[in-house]
């Protein structure tokens, strides 16, 4: 009797090119958005996602994880973050090309794109078993793409992951999720969508030899038409403003004074 051959797992890592975390954000004069003529880099939570995929392969071995593919949706310059993903260890990348002037795709459109790509990959050797992506992007902080994708695909989801363990024999993952009360452990059957949280890992730097190796790794290109996804925004941003400037606090001399001030502010019961 032939033992059931455990098929090797393929991991898809969607990454987003977002405003770099170190940039001082400024609202644009029209108050329709932020000044995007600034430094961009890979969304930090997505970096953690790429790192986790690589670490899974390092710990489980190439006998379990077959491929790690990075994908991004955006204008031509988005390819630079794909190169970074390739330089830290992804095997191949996909660029879904949007025109330069197109607005940033919304989570539902992103999720539909990923769904289309996963469908394209089929059920054979290239079947996608795990999607690991950041819990949110640091520019819009929407934090919904992973969940929407799981919903569209009907897959298990484990969000805000701070620890991921793969049990390939059982076809399951055990994920520790960060929740308000602490940590929650969930067991999910493959295929699964995992979103990464800050404490999952610390991403590595792309070493010089790996940057050079990345040059040879393939980057596939698709257009929205190829995947049949409509990127027309469903949401319209009416206004973007800076938060009100913090005014200085005041010092109080005693607890009584503090209570009196709190009552004045309407925060404490009279």
């Amino acid at each position: 009797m032939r033992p059931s051959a455990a098929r090797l797992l393929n991991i898809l890592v969607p990454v987003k090119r977002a405003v770099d975390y170190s940039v001082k954000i400024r609202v644009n004069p029209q108050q329709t958005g932020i000044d995007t003529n600034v430094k961009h880099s890979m969304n930090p939570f997505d970096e953690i996602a790429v790192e986790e995929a690589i670490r899974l392969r390092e710990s489980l071995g190439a006998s379990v994880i077959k491929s790690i593919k990075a994908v991004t949706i955006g204008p031509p310059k988005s390819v630079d973050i794909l190169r970074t993903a390739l330089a830290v260890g992804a095997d191949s990348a996909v660029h879904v090309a949007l025109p330069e002037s197109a607005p940033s795709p919304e989570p539902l459109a992103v999720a539909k794109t990923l769904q289309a790509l996963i469908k394209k990959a089929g059920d054979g050797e290239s079947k996608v078993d795990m999607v690991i992506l950041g819990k949110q992007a640091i520019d819009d902080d929407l934090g919904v793409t992973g969940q929407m994708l799981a919903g569209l695909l009907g897959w298990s989801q484990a969000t805000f992951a701070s620890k991921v363990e793969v049990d390939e024999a059982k076809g399951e993952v055990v994920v520790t999720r960060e929740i308000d009360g602490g940590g929650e452990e969930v067991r999910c059957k493959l295929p699964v969508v995992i979103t990464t949280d800050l404490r999952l890992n610390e991403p590595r730097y792309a070493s010089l030899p790996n940057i050079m190796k990345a040059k040879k790794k393939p980057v596939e290109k698709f257009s929205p038409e190829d995947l049949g996804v409509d990127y027309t925004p469903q949401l319209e941003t009416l206004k973007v403003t800076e938060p009100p400037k913090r005014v200085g606090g005041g010092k109080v001399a005693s607890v009584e004074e503090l209570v009196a001030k709190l009552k004045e502010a309407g925060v404490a019961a009279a």
Partner: protein
Amino acid sequence: MLRLAARSAKPLTALRSASRTFATSRCVRSERSPASLDTFTEEEQLLRESVRRFAVDVVGPKVREMDENEMMDPSVIKGLYEQGLMGIETSADHGGAECSFTSAIIAIEELAKVDPSVSVLCDVHNTLVNTVIRKYGNKEQQDKWLPLLAESKLGSFCLSEPASGSDAFALQTRAKKEGSHWILNGSKMWITNSYEAEIFLIFANASFRCPMFSVSMLTILQQIDPSKGYKGITCFIATKDMGVQIAKKEEKLGIRASSTCTINFDDLKIPEENVLGGEGKGYKIAIEILNEGRIGIAAQMLGLAQGAFDKAVPYTFERKQFGQPIGTFQGMQFQMAQAAIDIETARLLTYNAARRKEEGLPFTKEAAMAKYWSSVVAQRVSGQAIEWAGGVGFTRETGIEKFWRDSKIGAIYEGTSNIQLQTIAKFIQKEYS
């Protein structure tokens, strides 16, 4: 790698007529149109970003401690090796990253923005030690030494002596042949990386083999022959365990974490296969390599200036006096603008010299200009940075004053400023007289 392949396929005439085109660079519009001087390939940009992050995250937290202790943290050196930054131009066959010379310059600049001491360690190892072996080593030497240098062993370049700095080729270290070995005696001084290094490139004056047709006492050639002047100078590869003695470690004004020691050779025995490039070729090796090394130092000084600027300017927009951030006062603004211009000029000189070298164009004058000017800019801008930050800039806590102390060496090592000016003047004289 692609760039190197393209260069060797193109005939030299095509190279020269194409001026500053980078055929395989993805950011050039067309093969024949010259690009601006801040054009970099995708790999070079990725490298810059990667080194920047490494420098900020791994080196940054240790800078003050290393400076106060006058000691390079071994984990920093290890990190440089892990990032592949110790064999930048070395071929992949020898364990290196097989990148362009400009890539090395980028790495040196990015490291210097955080710590010029770490930058010079990487610079000397790459642009002096690695390159000498790559260019002048025979196959056996390359196969033996380049992988060691790329993977784990630090290199040191030993030319200067107590009595010979600018007058480098008046060196007194002697080498005499005994059977299949050379015996070296003498001292080297001001040697960077010497405390941590395991591989040393030593320049010593060896005697020539006189033809054995005369039985006169003079031709019994076990004697030193410094009278042959620079023609006897030979480059030897030595390892620490051959008996290189590390003596006094200098206590310096700046780049304190970079070890600068006197090293002694007391009948140091070196096998003959460790002669690089052949007997008497040391002068040529040193002259040519120091030309390239100059661009490395220019990059270090450039990074230093930029690092000081980047540390001080944000502070000026936070610090308020008389009701406004001091960075908004016109006097301050004019100073910052001038410093930015200075840095830009140093940047263009440095990267243009680097590209000229890559393209096989003559670059001696440009390298001298870049090194000289970058060291001037580094001194000026780092000094200003202290003043912009006021009292806080004067304390050691912010690390701004460290840049100023570190900058002073720029006008001194790898060719003093006066030597650079002399080099440039020679070209002028040749052209105009």
